């Protein structure tokens, strides 16, 4: 049972403010992903939770206990590092058993727990090897096994898959998700890879410039981004934006079309995901600039109202460069943002 609570945490490195007033609660057994571009503060936040970094301000609570004054070893956490940090002078067995030995557990219990987690991570045949004799994927497994063997309340992962090749990453993603769900541990997972975040998380905290912009379930973050940054960061190709001027009574003028929208003061930004449009009789007039057949879909980069505008269309359609399309946005998928505050407008 371990809920994590972060209260008003801020971190400054000299003049540089790495984190601004972070508040976040991670429920027991929840899989929370901290997602953001490099330098957004996600790793700093993770390291503050782990105790490898001290917060300038604020409190960290784990399992109802305030821990921000404790050493990493006293916080009930385990961590998986980006470069695995598998000890080169120890065998795989001793690596996995390292934390257990530090707890001075009896030999047979260490052996039992090491073997169990090694089997769980499918590395039971590697126990006698040294880290130099392992592939990147195998080292990754050792690092995860070492953390799991501790049976921690909380497991912290810092871009654990970023050094693996694409295929292995996909495989490990699914496996890690399964193993963690089974172990019933609370997990915080840092990544810059939105696919990883979407596929693994119970909840995603999108971070930008030292702040959490939105913390919500993957589908919520995707469908209802709370800010322009989230909308642009999540989804590939990214969301399209067009400026909208008020046309009275909840109607908005977008690239020569009048579209239903919120009752708000203008101007606003109209936003739509590329896959939420289809060719139709009426809609946005788009001139195709680049046509990329991707097999499953057709990605068309067009120009609407003098702006780049992407549409993911059915691959059966034939579109050539220079064609003029009329694209109708799916009404329930249209989102609106205030260009001043960059926040979503309901």
């Amino acid at each position, binding site marked *: 049972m371990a809920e994590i609570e972060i209260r008003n945490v801020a971190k400054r490195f000299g003049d540089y403010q790495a984190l601004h007033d972070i508040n976040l609660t991670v429920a027991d057994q929840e899989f929370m992903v901290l997602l953001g571009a490099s330098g957004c503060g996600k790793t700093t936040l993770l390291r503050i939770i782990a*105790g490898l970094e001290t917060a300038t301000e604020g409190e960290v609570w784990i399992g109802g206990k305030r821990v921000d004054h404790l050493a990493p070893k006293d916080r009930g956490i385990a961590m998986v590092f980006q470069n695995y940090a598998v000890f*080169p002078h120890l065998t795989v067995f001793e690596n996995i058993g390292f934390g257990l030995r530090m707890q001075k557990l009896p030999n047979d219990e260490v052996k039992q727990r090491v073997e169990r987690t090694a089997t769980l991570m499918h590395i039971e045949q590697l126990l006698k090897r040294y880290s130099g004799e392992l592939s990147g994927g195998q080292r990754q497994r050792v690092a995860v096994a070492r953390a799991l063997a501790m049976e921690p309340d909380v497991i912290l992962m810092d871009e654990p898959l970023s050094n693996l090749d694409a295929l292995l990453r996909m495989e490990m993603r699914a496996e890690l998700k399964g193993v963690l769900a089974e172990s019933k541990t609370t997990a915080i997972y840092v990544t810059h890879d939105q696919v990883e975040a979407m596929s693994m998380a119970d909840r995603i905290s999108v971070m930008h410039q030292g702040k959490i912009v939105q913390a919500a379930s993957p589908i919520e973050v995707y469908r209802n981004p709370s800010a322009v940054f989230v909308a642009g960061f999540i989804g590939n190709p990214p969301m399209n934006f067009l400026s909208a001027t008020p046309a009275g009574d909840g109607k908005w003028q977008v690239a020569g079309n009048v579209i239903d929208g919120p009752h708000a003061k203008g101007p606003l930004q109209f936003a739509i995901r590329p896959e939420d449009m289809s060719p139709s009789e009426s809609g946005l007039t788009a001139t195709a600039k680049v046509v990329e057949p991707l097999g499953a879909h057709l990605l068309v980069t067009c120009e609407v109202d003098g702006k780049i505008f992407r549409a993911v269309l059915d691959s059966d359609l034939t579109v050539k460069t220079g064609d003029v399309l009329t694209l109708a946005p799916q009404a329930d998928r249209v989102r609106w943002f205030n260009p001043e505050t960059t926040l979503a407008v309901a």
Partner: protein
Amino acid sequence: MTTVATDTPMTDPRKAGRYVYAAGVFLLCAWVIVPLYFLLINTLSSPEAVNAFPKSFVPEFDLGSLTFFAGFAGMLTALKNSILVAVLTMILSIAVGAPAGYALSRFDFRGKEVFRMLILLTRAFPLPLLALPLAVMFIRTGLDDTIFGLALVHTTLAMPFAVLITFSLFSGIPLELEEAAWTLGCTRLTAFTKVVLPLILPGITASAIFAFVISWNEVFAAAVLTIENRTLTAFLLTNLDTSPLHLKFAGGFILVVPALIFIFAVRKYLFAMWGIANR
């Protein structure tokens, strides 16, 4: 004739170049080894042969010179003193220097650059000169003419190297390994002893040996600071004009032997140490 002449010019200059290259390498090796070989001949010859003329260019494998050396009054004590001072220097310089090397590699702290400059500065100083005032200071503190007093001075000589070498060694161990140990239940100290120390031990040994050699070879401070408890170098130096040739050569040989072994033992680290120390 003509076919041979047209075929070869492509390969010939290259081949010639390779011979010149090989000959150059060989000559430079000989340049280092031949003088050592001469010393070996002299050491393994009887005192009479050492003083005779002309010299033979092969040793006669007579231990006369070495036995004379061993029997010469004070020589064995000097040898023992040399070893003691060098071992003390080795321990002191690592014990005092390694923590600073660790601090330099792991922490950003105010005054770090000043400290680094101070260390580099000592390396750029004719340190043996400082033995002169130390002689006075040692007399006052009772450290004069002691093994320990000399070891302290030699430690000052070896210290900049110990700090810079351990600095580069620690920098080669990813911080992540230590952090992993902390999250797995280690304190700073246990993480150091269980993770960093085992990984760094070979390098530490190399830099300790380096400190040993520095002390072993040091002449000036040893001659200034010791009177009764001469080290081998000091003993040989102060008796240069009075001692017979075969004694000098046997002494020189004894001085050289550890050097040969030590350089062999640390050869892997020599270049790595300087590579990082230069940055």
